[in-house]
C-alpha cells in the first residue's frame, strides 16, 4: 500500500464495475469480470495459463486461486472464495462457495452450486458434480437443493465501502475508450 501508481502488470484485465484492491497479489494473465470484488491480501496466481474470473465473485482476504496448468482456468459467476481458502481447481462453475480455509486440489473440476465447507479438503482427481456440499471434519458429502444464492447486497456494499479505504485498480478500457464488461 502507499504508491498510488496504476498497477503495471499489463496482463491483468479488469472489467468495469469490479472492485479490485491494489493490495492483492495478481500474478500472470488474469481477467476479472464485472461486479467481482477482490479483497486485500487475496492472491490470484496464474503461474502458466491464464485465470478468467466471471461476474459477481467475491475473493476474500488471504484466499488463493492458483492455476498451474497451461490451459486457462475459467471461473464462472457468483462464486465466493472465503478467507484463507486455497483453490487450484481446473474449472469452476457458478454459485460455488469455498468456505474459510478450504482446499481444492489441482485435479478437481468443480461444477455449479457446490459448497466446500470450512477446513474441508477436496484433492482427488474428480469432477465435483453440481450441488454437492462437502462438510464436517470427515469431509462428508451430500447434495443440497438450494445452493443458488447470489451475494448481490454484499457486493454492492463492498464496492461502495472498499473504495474509501483502499486503492483500487482502475478498470481497463478498450482501444476506443469504451468500458469493458459494462453492457
Amino acid at each position: 500500500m502507499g504508491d498510488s501508481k496504476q498497477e503495471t502488470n499489463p496482463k491483468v484485465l479488469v472489467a468495469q464495475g469490479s472492485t479490485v484492491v491494489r493490495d492483492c497479489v495478481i500474478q500472470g494473465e488474469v481477467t476479472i469480470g464485472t461486479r467481482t470484488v477482490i479483497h486485500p491480501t487475496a492472491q490470484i496466481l496464474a503461474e502458466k495459463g491464464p485465470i478468467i474470473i466471471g461476474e459477481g465473485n467475491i475473493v476474500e482476504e488471504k484466499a488463493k486461486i492458483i492455476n498451474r496448468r497451461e490451459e486457462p482456468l475459467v471461473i464462472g459467476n457468483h462464486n465466493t472464495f472465503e478467507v484463507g481458502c486455497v483453490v487450484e481447481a481446473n474449472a469452476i462453475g457458478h454459485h460455488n462457495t469455498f468456505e474459510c480455509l478450504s482446499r481444492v486440489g489441482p485435479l478437481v473440476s468443480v461444477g455449479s452450486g457446490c459448497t466446500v465447507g470450512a477446513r474441508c479438503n477436496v484433492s482427488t482427481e474428480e469432477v465435483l458434480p453440481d450441488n454437492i456440499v462437502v462438510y464436517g471434519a470427515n469431509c462428508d458429502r451430500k447434495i443440497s437443493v438450494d445452493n443458488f444464492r447470489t451475494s448481490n447486497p454484499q457486493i454492492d456494499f463492498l464496492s461502495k465501502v472498499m473504495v474509501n479505504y483502499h486503492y483500487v485498480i482502475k478498470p481497463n478500457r478498450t482501444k476506443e475508450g469504451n468500458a469493458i464488461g459494462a453492457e
Partner: protein
Amino acid sequence: MEIFFPKVVNYVCTCGARKPLDVLFYCKHCFKLRCGECVSHEVDTHYCPNCLEFMTSPEARVKKNVCTTCFECPCCGIALYSRGTSKQVPSEKDPSNMVVNKAYYLMCNSCKWSTHDQSLEDQPTQSGGWPRLEAPNQDRVHQLCEYYRIVAHQEKVEKDKKRITQKCGYYISDKYGVASVAAKKYMSLQVTPRKESQKVAAECFASKASEVVDDLPSDFLEELNIDEVTNIRMRLSNPDIQPEKMSMLKMRNLKLLTKKSQRCKECGHSLRKSEYNPGSVKFKIQLSAYYHIPYVRVKQVPNLIAGREVTIELTLTNPTSHEVAVELLPMEEANTPSGSGLLFPEVTCSPQLPKGTLYLPAKDDTAEYDDPADKMDDRNDKSVVTFKRLNKLGIKMQITPKQAENVAIGLRLKHTYTNLIIQGDKREYEVLSLIHPVLLNLSHFAKNSISA
C-alpha cells in the same frame, strides 16, 4: 486445559483413579482429592445450548428433554439458524400491486441442509411455528410406557406388602409416631393407577415376531447415488424414522443440556456448583484441585536411554495464597502397611528425589505486573533448585531408566495446606500436611523431544 497437563502428570485420586490435576476436585472438608467418578453428580438445571432458555427438571421431562423453539440439523446435529428471504408476491387486496413478503426458513450452517429439503413451507415469523415431529410409533410407545408403569406399581405393592406383613409380628408403639407413618405408607400402596392409564395399558398387546420382513430397497442394489443415501450416524440419530435417503431426513428439536453440580460422597459438601443462569460460566462453589494443590509439571526430559542416568527438570507451582512447603517422597514407602496401600504397577523407574523441604512462595496476583526480581529463598537447596519465578520453582532430579520406552516415575507429593477456619468472627489458620501420589509419564514427553 489439556495444554497444562498433556496426560504427562497424573495425580492419584483418593479412589485410586489416575487423573490430571485440572479434572480433580479437592474436598476442603475431608482434605482429599476427588475425581468425577467418586463424587455424586446432581442435575441442577436443563437448558437449551442454542437459545440458553432454562427450565427445571419436571418441565424438561414434560417437554421430553428437547427445546421447543430450536432445531438441530438431521445431517450433522448442529443447531439450525434462521434465514430470511424476501419474495415479491401480488398483494391480496390488489393483485396488480406487488408487495415484498418476508419469509423465514431454517438452515444448517455446516452442511447447508435446510427446511426446503424437508419440503416445509417458509414461516412468516423468525422463530417458532414449525410443526412438531410426530414419531410414527408414538401411540405404541405411550401404551407400553403406561403398561410398564402399572407393572412396576404392582411389583412395588407386592414387595411392600411382603415387608409389612413381615413386620406385623412386632408391636408398633405409637409413642414415636411410627405407626402413623406405617399406616400412611400402607394407604399409599392402596392407590391404584389412574383410570385412563389403565385403559391405555389394557389395549397393550405383546409384539409378535414375524417371518415376513421388508425387502431391501431396490435402489440400493441398482443405481445408487452415494450422496443421496444417509450414513449410519444420521440413521442412528433419528431412531424413530431411520431414514435411508437424504430426502427422508427430518429436523429434530434440539436436545437440552444440563448443568450439574458435584458433591463429595463422604461428607456431602458441594464441590462445584455453577450459577443457575445458563449463559454464565461462573461458579458459586468451585473446589477444583487446580486451585488448592501444588501442581507438578515436567519441564525438560532429555533423550531416555536404558541404563544411563539423566537429569530431568520439573516445575512446582503453588496456586494458593499461602506459602507451601513441599517434600518429595519416594513412592515405595506408600506400599508399607502404614501407607495408603495403593500399588502403582505403571511406575517403571524410581527417581533420585531431592531431600529436604522446598518452599514455594504464595501466589500473588499483582506480582505479575511487577519487575520479576526474584530472589532465591535461602531455605531451598540450591543444588536442586534450577530457577524461581513468582510462585513457581524449578527443580532437577536424576533418573536412571531401566528401559528406553514407557518410562514412568512416581513420587509422593507431601505439602502443607493452610486451611482457613471461620468460627463466628474468628478467623483461624490451620496448617495441615497432605500427601498425594503423583505419576509422571516421561516417555510421552521424551518422544516429542526426539522428533523435535
